[in-house]
C-alpha cells in the first residue's frame, strides 16, 4: 500500500512539474512577438500579410491554420519549393533562422494568435522538439 502511495505521489509531482515548466500561453505569445520582430517581420511584414506573390501571408493563411505541424517544421528546418497559400502560388526559399525550440514555440503562438488569426493551438517547446526531419 505504501508503495502505491509513493508511486501516486511521484506521478502527481511529475505532472505538476510538467505543468509548472509549461510557459503560460500569453507569456509565450509576448515572447514570440519579440522573435517575430527580429526574424520574420522583414519578409512577412508587421501586419502578417507578407508580400503578394513573393512572401506568403501568415494572417488568415490557410496554409498555416490548416496544418500547424507543417509550419513548425518549416520554421525549424526551412522551406523551399512551390506552395499554395490562399489560392496563390509562392516559390521562394525560407531558410532556417537558427531559432531554438522554445523560440519556435513562442513565435508560432504569436502568429497563431495575431492579426485576427484564431486557433485552439498552444504550441509547446516539447512539440517543437519532437518535430523531426523525416
Amino acid at each position, binding site marked *: 500500500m505504501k508503495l502505491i502511495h509513493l508511486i501516486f505521489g511521484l506521478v502527481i509531482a511529475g505532472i505538476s512539474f510538467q505543468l509548472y515548466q509549461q510557459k503560460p500561453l500569453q507569456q509565450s505569445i509576448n515572447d514570440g512577438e519579440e522573435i517575430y520582430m527580429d526574424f520574420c517581420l522583414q519578409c512577412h511584414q508587421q501586419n502578417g500579410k507578407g508580400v503578394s506573390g513573393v512572401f506568403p501571408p501568415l494572417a488568415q493563411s490557410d496554409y498555416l491554420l490548416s496544418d500547424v505541424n507543417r509550419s513548425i517544421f518549416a520554421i525549424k528546418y526551412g522551406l523551399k519549393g512551390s506552395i499554395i497559400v490562399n489560392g496563390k502560388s509562392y516559390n521562394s526559399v525560407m531558410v532556417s*533562422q537558427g531559432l531554438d525550440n522554445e523560440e519556435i514555440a513562442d513565435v508560432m503562438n504569436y502568429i497563431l494568435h495575431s492579426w485576427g488569426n484564431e486557433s485552439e493551438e498552444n504550441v509547446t517547446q516539447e512539440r517543437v522538439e519532437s518535430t523531426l526531419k523525416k
Partner: protein
Amino acid sequence: MNLNSFFFLMISVTLIINCDAQENGPKIQTPKTVDYTFEVVADSIDIPWGLTFLSTDEMLVTDKSGILYHIKEGVKTEVEGLPPIYVRGQGGLLDVAISPDFETSNLIYLTASSPLGEEPGGHTALYIAKYENFKLLDLELLYKGDYNTKKGQHWGSRITFDNDGHVFFSIGDRGNREVNPQDITRDGGKIYRLNLDGSIPEDNPFVDKDNSRKAIFSYGHRNPQGMTIHPETGKVWVHEHGPRGGDEINVIEAGKNFGWPVITYGINYSGTPITDKTEDEKMEQPLYYWLPSIAPSGMTFSSSGVYPDWKGNLFVGSLKFEYLERLILKNNTVVAREKVLDSIGRVRNVEEGPDGHLYLGVEGKGILKIIPKK
C-alpha cells in the same frame, strides 16, 4: 459636406498617399532592347552569398547555411575545414574572397557569424586560410566583433581589398542601432581595415583614440552587404540596407561618419519616423540613396569591354525587386538606372569574373553568368 471641406479632404488624402509614394530619381527603366542572355553555371544553392574566382573556370561560393562550395564546370564540391558558423537570422557563412596575392600564397578570406566568445549569441568574424584541394588549411581568426548578441539582424558582410595591401570588411549594426553604429568603442555598424596579415595599419583613423576599436575605418553604417573597389580611383564603394527607404551608396573615407541612425532617408518598417534629420554637418551624405528600398546586396563595377555600353557602370543586386540594377554614373552622380534580368529572383551577389563577365548569385537558383548576344 461643403465644397471647402471636400477639397481639404482630397488634399489630405493626396498628401497621405504621396507620403509613401515619394521616390528618389532617376526612375528605374526597363531597357528597350536586350542584347544579352544568361546561363546557369551552378544550380541549387539556397543563398549564394559570396563568390570568388580561383582561376578562370574555378570558383568558391558560400551558402549562408554554412557550406563553402568549390565549383568547376558546374560540379559543386563541399570544401572542408570551416570555422564554427552561428546560423541565426540574417547571419551564417557570409563572404569569401581570394587574397590579392592568391597566385603565390593560396590564401583566402572569409567572413562568418561566429559564436566564439563568452557571451551567448554571436558576432561577425573575419578569417584567413590556405585553400588546397577542397580543404581549408591553417585557418586563422583575424578579427571578431563583440559583444555577442542573439539578435538575428545586420551582420554585414562583404570583403574587399584596396591596391595598398589592405583588406576591408563590413559588420552591420547587429540589431542595436541606438548603441553600436555611432560608438567607436564598440563593434557593429562599421567598415574595418586591416593589413593583409590581420595586423592594424598604423595610419588607421582611430588608433590614437582611447578605448576605440583600432580596426575601424568608417562608422555610422547600418547593414553593408555590398562593397567594391572603383577600378580607376581605387576608392572603396559600399552600399547598405536602409530601414524602409534610405538604402545608400557611400564612398567611404578614413574616420568619416555616415550617419546611421542620426540621419537617414528611411523610416521604420512600421511606418513611424526614426529621425526627422536627413543631414548633419558632421556626417557624410550618401552618393546615392534608394527610395523605395531595393534591398541591395552585392556590388561591382563592370570594367571589361565584354558588354557594349556597360563599361564603368555600377551593378547592384536587388533582393526585393528581384533584378540586377545597372547604375550609370557621371561625375559621381547616378544619372540613370536600369533593370537587368527582371524577375530573375532575389539577387544576393554580383561579381566580375576574370573573363570580364558578370556573375550573379541568385537565391534558390545558384550562379548565373550574363552573356552578350553576338
